[in-house]
């Protein structure tokens, strides 16, 4: 110092701190152990598996069509996408193409799932940062989407809507118009919340530069979804390997360069906006016709055929009792879930139950990078970064 005295570093011990597995900021059952020097994270490590529900083993014990409810409970923030994706994987396996109307309904429900997934992700992340208001705003729209689901198939959250070969029910009268109305309102609400935080001084101070996932990290950790896109990796399964007619719709894949918490939040806002656009296009161009494929080896017959015809009754009995029986083989099918590439790798032995189902959960890869991005940061940065990566324990641990 200028007066001649020297500054000695204050000796400090490293403090080991557990965050989780039952900590409010971990949104479920993650556990993070950090070693702190003051408030700076020197070392960190993650422990997962607290919600390992044995999904993959459970799938081996049930018929293909009965995996649908299990699949829905993987990413419970936007449940319907997982079951849509499972049915898509089975259809690819069986080489069955669902009718165009069913594909459009899947696009609509899946994109709604993406919107409510991002809405709650942004909302809870902001709660962690101390901004509770946004959560109420966002959750109101989640409730409205729940209403739409309820009208469509009778359930709020775990809808169990798709079937292998199509979807279980057609949209009721007036449902599509109602969708458009709610999507319009939602677009407006998303814009409002965005204006609340986009240039908000406090929010930016907390999030810019916090938890940076660089492009190199994203590639070496196979990160997909909004986290990768915020780091400049413009990979989206909907564009790269289109399914359900996504190539017919015009939409952007929003990207950013910084890869920090702020960019991830803004990318999610853009994605919600793009999803609204896709839903509107899908509704505007929805074709008529059936919603289930006409194949008695895959689809249950209509109820009046079951009650009034012999063939219908037999087909129904065979499908329920003996299941769908795909050929021997193995197949990997990927779709774009809420957090990135959701892959199902199915191996069949020719019987009605899958021999092996392996999930490629987007969260698993996304979370594995987490200890690296919080090194040298403060605990509060780690909490902000954790919320923006959006780890869903159901999908992470399966």
């Amino acid at each position, binding site marked *: 110092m200028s007066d001649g005295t020297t500054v000695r570093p204050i000796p400090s011990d490293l403090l080991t701190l557990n965050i989780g597995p039952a900590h409010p900021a971990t949104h479920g059952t993650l556990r993070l152990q950090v070693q702190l020097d003051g408030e700076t994270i020197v*070392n960190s490590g993650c422990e997962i598996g607290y919600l*390992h529900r044995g999904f993959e083993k459970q799938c081996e014990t049930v018929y293909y069509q009965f995996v649908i409810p299990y699949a829905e409970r993987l990413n419970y923030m936007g449940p319907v996408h997982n079951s849509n994706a499972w049915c898509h994987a089975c259809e690819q396996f069986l080489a069955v193409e669902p009718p165009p109307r069913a594909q459009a309904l899947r696009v609509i429900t899946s994109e709604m799932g993406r919107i409510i997934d991002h809405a709650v992700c942004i909302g809870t992340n902001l709660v962690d940062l101390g901004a509770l208001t946004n959560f109420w705003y966002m959750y109101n729209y989640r409730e409205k989407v729940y209403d739409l689901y309820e009208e469509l198939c009778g359930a709020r959250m775990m809808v169990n809507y798709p079937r292998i070969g199509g979807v279980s029910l057609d949209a009721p009268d007036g449902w599509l118009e109602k969708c458009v109305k709610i999507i319009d309102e939602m677009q407006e609400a998303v814009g409002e919340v965005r204006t609340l935080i986009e240039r908000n001084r406090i929010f930016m101070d907390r999030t810019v530069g916090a938890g940076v996932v660089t492009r190199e990290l994203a590639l070496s950790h196979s990160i997909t979804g909004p986290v990768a896109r915020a780091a400049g990796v413009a990979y989206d399964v909907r564009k790269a390997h289109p399914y359900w007619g996504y190539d017919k719709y015009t939409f952007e894949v929003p990207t950013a360069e910084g890869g920090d918490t702020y960019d991830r939040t803004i990318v999610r806002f853009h994605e919600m906006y793009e999803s609204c656009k896709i839903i509107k296009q899908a509704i505007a161009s929805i074709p008529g016709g059936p919603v289930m494929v006409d194949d008695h080896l895959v689809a249950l017959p209509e109820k009046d055929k079951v009650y009034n015809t012999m063939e219908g009754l037999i087909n129904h009995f065979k499908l329920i009792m003996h299941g769908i029986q795909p050929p021997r083989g193995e197949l*990997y099918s990927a779709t774009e879930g809420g957090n990135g590439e959701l892959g199902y790798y199915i191996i069949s032995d020719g019987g009605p139950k899958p021999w092996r189902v392996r999930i490629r959960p987007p969260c698993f890869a996304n979370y594995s990078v987490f200890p690296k991005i919080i090194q040298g940061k403060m605990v509060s940065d780690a909490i902000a970064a954790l919320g923006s990566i959006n780890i869903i324990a159901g999908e992470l641990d399966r």
Partner: protein
Amino acid sequence: MIERDIMAKVQARFGAKVLATYEFRGQCAVTVAPADLRAVLCWMRDDAEIATDWLMDVGGVDYLGYPDDDDRGWRYEVVYQLRSASHGHRFRVKAAVGEADPVVPSVWDLWAVANWMEREVWDLFGVRFSGHPNLRRIMCHDQFEGHALRKDYPINKRQKLSIPAENLLCEKVEWA
């Protein structure tokens, strides 16, 4: 490049080292011995036409009791799902792992994401990965005995964790 061409190219390069090839619904895979796995994966990653530089997933399979399958000379397979970021194609490489000494070389130094995924395969199938820095259980708790996704593990055989939570939380996890 379609997957069949990739398969032909890998076969042409590695010849008899490719133990089996596989095609279903346009998706192709090759099976190699664990000793050749790293060479195959590295070559495919560095080849300009194939360039499978993304490792999307690592998973295990247990073929114990797979019907009509007597000529398969191994019990487990470790499956690597690859994708090329530049070309956009996918490919699958499988390592054939025998029952007696299930060991596969780790690829965590090539793809950082393999670290956790290999731990999961070890936890659920009991396939070891040589050269892995921290081969611990990841899904099941540390007192768990056996490997849950093996076909000979009964699905509802539950194992209680008897450590009180205070001790549990003092355990060191791996530092990244």
